[in-house]
């Protein structure tokens, strides 16, 4: 394929205007030592048909959710996405525009992001949302950096629940590694599968900067944030709620109602395909009083010179292109197209749809868990309330997983890679996409 439209006559005419004899003449000032070794040693271009065939061959080597029964969550979820979502984000007016620096001709993107910010506030119960960041993991890391900007320098202990997504914990560690004042500490989980509140309370002190807790956490457990918030408030630490399954907010009390300081998470659940884990977006919300410390893009409402309502990127003095080394973050993207997908998705789902889909998830996951325990003789591991994921223990999981694979079933995610203490345990996820027959098959297959 060629996407350069220049005919030989075009090139000749343009070179004449420029006053150079050949295309090579345009870069004679590039040192010869570089030019003479620059040839790209890759095969020549292909026809569109050949490209499509090669890519289809690669795609066919992957196990898709359509061909397999996947009971996989762990931060990436398979949910139903109405056809209208892709129809809207495929519109090239959205997909082929850039960051809305020229608001007069970007009102589409800007208004959609303003609506996105509103929807995230409503869903999380928070006062302010930015226009999204990369993913849930970097959102959690940015939340820690934000707490560091807000809290006095004497408070630099960061307490992270061990029941928080292992990738998120790893990314937080990467982000703060070079900030020598910050100390990361892990808080264990207890038999409920939730953060051990006694241990947390004991560790909180006047040097504590913030506490990060999954809600629901990596084990699918819905932790009661009320006592955690009280403990944080007594010690003067900020509470950061981290969510990788925001669909749960259709039913669960949102983090804002627990008065958390910052609520962040992964938005993939809300209308974005799994895509091997990316791209989706990270949502980032906080209390209003912290707005000038928030990272990333913000869209605000204003008026034009005729008094009409319009939207602009605002509070840009926090950002890297103005503040450079003093910026609140180096981020300069908002995963806008994915945030737009969520905006369309949430608009279609609406108030009742969000509640219903959350209820279906809860019901199916609870049914599956009960049957796997009763009929397939697996053991429950945690006692806390859960949304659509749960942890089970079984003897000889290798055999269980091998047998399941033969029936094109993946029962869940093995946990020992991140939690040596949870050998023989796996995390299973059931959503509205796992039909009852699929659950029947899972139970039968594991029961042998």
């Amino acid at each position, binding site marked *: 394929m060629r996407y350069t439209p220049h005919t030989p006559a075009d090139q000749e005419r343009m070179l004449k205007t420029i006053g150079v004899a050949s295309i090579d003449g*345009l870069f004679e000032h590039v040192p010869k030592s570089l030019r003479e070794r620059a040839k790209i040693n890759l095969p020549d271009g292909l026809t569109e048909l050949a490209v499509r065939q090669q890519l289809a061959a690669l795609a066919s080597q992957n196990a898709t959710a359509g061909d397999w029964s996947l009971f996989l969550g762990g931060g990436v979820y398979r949910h139903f996405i109405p056809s209208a979502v892709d129809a809207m984000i495929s519109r090239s007016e959205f997909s082929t525009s850039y960051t809305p620096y020229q*608001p007069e001709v970007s009102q589409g993107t800007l208004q959609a992001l303003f609506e996105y910010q509103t929807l995230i506030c409503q869903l999380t119960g928070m006062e302010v949302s930015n226009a999204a960041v990369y993913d849930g993991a970097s959102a959690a890391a940015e939340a820690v950096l934000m707490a560091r900007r807000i809290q006095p320098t004497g408070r630099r202990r960061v307490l992270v629940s061990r029941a928080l997504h292992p990738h998120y914990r790893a990314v937080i560690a990467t982000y703060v590694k070079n900030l020598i004042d910050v100390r990361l500490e892990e808080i264990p989980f207890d038999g409920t599968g939730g953060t051990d509140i006694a241990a947390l309370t004991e560790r909180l002190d006047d040097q504590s900067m913030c506490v990060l807790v999954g809600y629901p956490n990596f084990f699918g457990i819905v932790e009661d944030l009320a006592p955690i918030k009280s403990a944080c408030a007594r010690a003067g630490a900020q509470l950061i709620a981290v969510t990788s399954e925001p669909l749960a907010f259709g039913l669960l009390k949102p983090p804002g109602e627990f008065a958390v300081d910052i609520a962040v998470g992964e938005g993939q659940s809300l209308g974005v395909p799994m895509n091997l884990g990316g791209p989706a977006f990270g949502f980032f919300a906080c209390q209003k009083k912290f707005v000038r410390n928030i990272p990333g893009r913000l869209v605000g409402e204003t008026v034009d010179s005729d008094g009409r309502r319009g939207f602009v990127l605002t509070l840009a003095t926090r950002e890297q292109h103005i503040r450079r080394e003093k910026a609140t*973050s180096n981020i300069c993207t908002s995963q806008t197209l994915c945030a737009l997908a969520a905006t369309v998705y949430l608009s279609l789902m609406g108030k009742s749809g969000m509640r219903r889909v959350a209820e279906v998830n809860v019901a199916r996951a609870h049914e599956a868990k009960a049957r796997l325990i009763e009929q397939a003789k697996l053991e429950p591991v945690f006692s806390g309330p859960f949304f659509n994921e749960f942890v089970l223990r079984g003897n000889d999981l290798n055999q269980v997983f091998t047998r399941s694979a033969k029936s094109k079933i993946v029962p869940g995610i093995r946990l020992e890679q991140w939690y040596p203490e949870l050998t023989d345990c796996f995390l299973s996820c059931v959503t509205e996409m796992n039909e009852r027959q699929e659950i029947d098959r899972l139970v039968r297959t594991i029961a042998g």
Partner: protein
Amino acid sequence: MSEPSQDRKSRRVTEPNLLFESSSPGRNSIVWPAEAGDAAALIPPALLRDDIAGFPELGELEVLRHFTRLSQRNFAIESQFYPLGSCTMKYNPKINEVVARFPGFAEIHPLAPPGMLQGALALLHGLEIMLAEISGMEYVSLQPSAGAQGELTGLMLIRAYLADRGNPRRKIIVPDTAHGTNPASSTLCGYEVIQISSNDHGVIDATAVARVTDEEVAAIMITNPNTLGLFESNIEAIAEVVHGKGGLVYLDGANLNALMGIAKPGHMGVDVLHMNLHKTFSTPHGGGGPGAGPVAVNGQLRDYLPVPRLVKQGDRFELLEDAPKSVGRVRSYFGNFGVLVRAYTYILSLGGDGLEQASRMALLNANYIRRRLEKSYQIAFDEPCMHECIFTDRIQHKNGVSTLDIAKRLLDYGYHPPTIYFPLVVSGALMIEPTETETPETLDGFVDAMLAIAREAKEEPELVQQAPHSTPVRRLDEARAARKPVLRWERGSSAADS
């Protein structure tokens, strides 16, 4: 809530409602399975919420009409020429979109066993190899989600490498022409920023670098071509200076679209490089993401690359999480895979020869615009340009017309403006990057508009100063937005009400 304003001649409603203002209690199009019983009984009541206050209640057609109408209030590559400098707004091929939506790419789960993902891992491995070949670097990580995260990752690699040799050092040298992300990423990585100026020809001198380079300099971050659209012709000498003091060279690859087949960063003495796949490799910008910002390094930095590392063992691809010297994880899972699929598709489509042609035509288009405009607009640096050219408003300023006015007037002519007021070192900069996918006829149309605006600036400056005249909204009050931020809809909160 405000009354929708009317265009009195056409009687068309020009100002769309917000979703929340069109909502009607009980309205919804989606039907869910009837089962489920009393799901709420399975969760303790203290952890349940009431209905989501204010959430939209709309039918499917209303939602579609809403977003379709919003989309029509955007400029985009497929409807307008978009010569936004340093953003490389080239055509985003449709085949990329089709391929990225194959169920074998879109409907796969990152925590499935690697044996079930061999096609995806083969694609990632292939892309690593292709990007290494194009850039002349040795190893690539596809993890970073965007250019800025690629930068941060690159600096972390540098820090980890130097720390391993006894001293992470304190300073990063950043030219005054750099993108703002360079200093911001440096700070985030715990470094102090030393700014240096470019010379009268718009490039960095090796002597200027030598003056500030000591044993505490961890690296220099250079953009090449730089944000003035000029090739940093001293880069090899600069690399020698920095390497001589034990520091490293970081190349911001934002402008790689100028270099394919012309010069490879790996040959310039560069140790670490990030690339923006949404620029050079044609993935759509999406109104501000998602992008992808792979990092490439030479051999000595390989062990520090983020995890997971993709390795080929026999015929199989595996993911290595355990790499003791690695900087760690920079994001969840494997990067923005859907973006990586599009970039892979693009490289396969064009091939080595097509990529070279792309850069050559990008240079041709930029130089053509530069030549056609240079009599009417002041060129910032009278040097041969690469893929973009920078003008200033110096000539128009005499009539009180600024770069902002010129940009807004271009909207009336149906063109997206260039990047304005960047780089900061050029007063009133207009940074034009046409890219290779535009025809000379399109460039001529744009140039004619620019020439017409130059005439208007002389003859009718107020016409330009008050532009735009034909956009869905006129100039917006940005000061008001920042002074009293309204960042979400609430009943009765509209700024237009007050």
